[in-house]
């Protein structure tokens, strides 16, 4: 039997309707918005990496360059920028830690370490690291 000559049951061949995603999709659900904010933290992380690089440059360029750089840092614009960066950086850290358990499944024999415990562990380590860095820098 050939199928080619098989007459269609009715002339009709339906079209599919393909919905389009709106440009504003990320605005339509709170969780999407939080996601986009989380992704945008990367812009600030990158910005800070550049600032840190400039800081090192200034540090390496001698005492005068360093105090110039400090003055720059003290400008209100720079302070404001750092505040924003800090906000996003902390959001980045928190979201990163809260998602860490998704990739990490710790199983000790029959016991699976609950995700919450892993998140808490991350936060604790984060705080310890931060204190350590602060101590090293500030006790100079």
């Amino acid at each position, binding site marked *: 039997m050939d199928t080619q000559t098989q007459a269609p049951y009715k002339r009709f061949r339906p079209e*599919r*309707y393909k*919905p389009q995603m709106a440009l504003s*999709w990320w605005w339509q659900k709170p969780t*999407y918005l939080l996601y986009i904010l989380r992704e945008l933290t990367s812009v600030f992380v990158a910005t800070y990496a550049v600032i840190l690089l400039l800081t090192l440059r200034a540090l390496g360029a001698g005492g005068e360059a360093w105090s110039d750089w400090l003055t720059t840092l003290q400008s209100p614009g720079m302070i404001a920028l750092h505040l924003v960066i800090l906000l996003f950086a902390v959001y980045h850290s928190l979201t990163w830690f809260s*998602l860490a358990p*998704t*990739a990490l499944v710790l199983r000790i024999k029959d016991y699976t370490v609950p995700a919450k415990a892993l998140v808490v562990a991350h936060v604790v380590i984060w705080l310890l690291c931060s204190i350590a860095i602060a101590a090293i820098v500030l006790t100079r």
Partner: protein
Amino acid sequence: MQKSIKIEVKRYIPEKQPTPFYQEYEIPLEPKWGVLDALTYIKDEMDGTLSFRWSCHMGVCGSCGMMVNGQPALTCATFLEEYLPGPIRIEPLDHFRVIRDLVIDTDDFMGKLKRVKPWLIPVEEKPLSEGENKQTPAELAAFKQYTLCINCLLCYSACPVVGLNETFVGPAAIALAQRYNYDSRDQGQAERHDVLLDHGGAFDCTLIGECSRACPKHVDPTGAIQRYKADGALEYWKRLILPRGAASK
């Protein structure tokens, strides 16, 4: 006591007009009714032309997924009283082509499902006479969660990446691949790497996490995908650095 509730249904009948339209129905509000019961009521008593899929009415066949007030949901396991006083807006699942009314085209998904080789790939066939493969409860627990997927596709319509990127195999398919990867009886990971490492594979996921929030069976595709990314990246480096064929067989 509220006696009735308004249901707005997004309809699409290709013979009628090329774009969808909304239609409203006012139906009696019965205790214990699910959204699906409302739809069958409409179909039986008000409008025989409304098309939608359903079968088991117990949240296990996976055919009745729709958008309910903008969230993907299994309509047989979502209840009217959760949406009082209404109205309730019912639409076909997002990101899929629509065939008719609330019926979406799932062929693309069926193809993707097959691509990840969701079957047991043992090193060699074990003859029946040797009995069962031993698998301890702990080994079972290592992949059990990923076996629970009912292919309802809620995760696909929750995930923006699915909507943005047609080639993405998607959360459920990757979770299913992981279901076999983590099965102590399976040795097919290498074959599945070929798909999951490639374009459209796990690395297209940007960890939005909506898939897991939408999943009615707590499969946690987000976790499955993230865990894959860790395994997959390792495999990638092995394939890059080690001579051909030396990476995991």
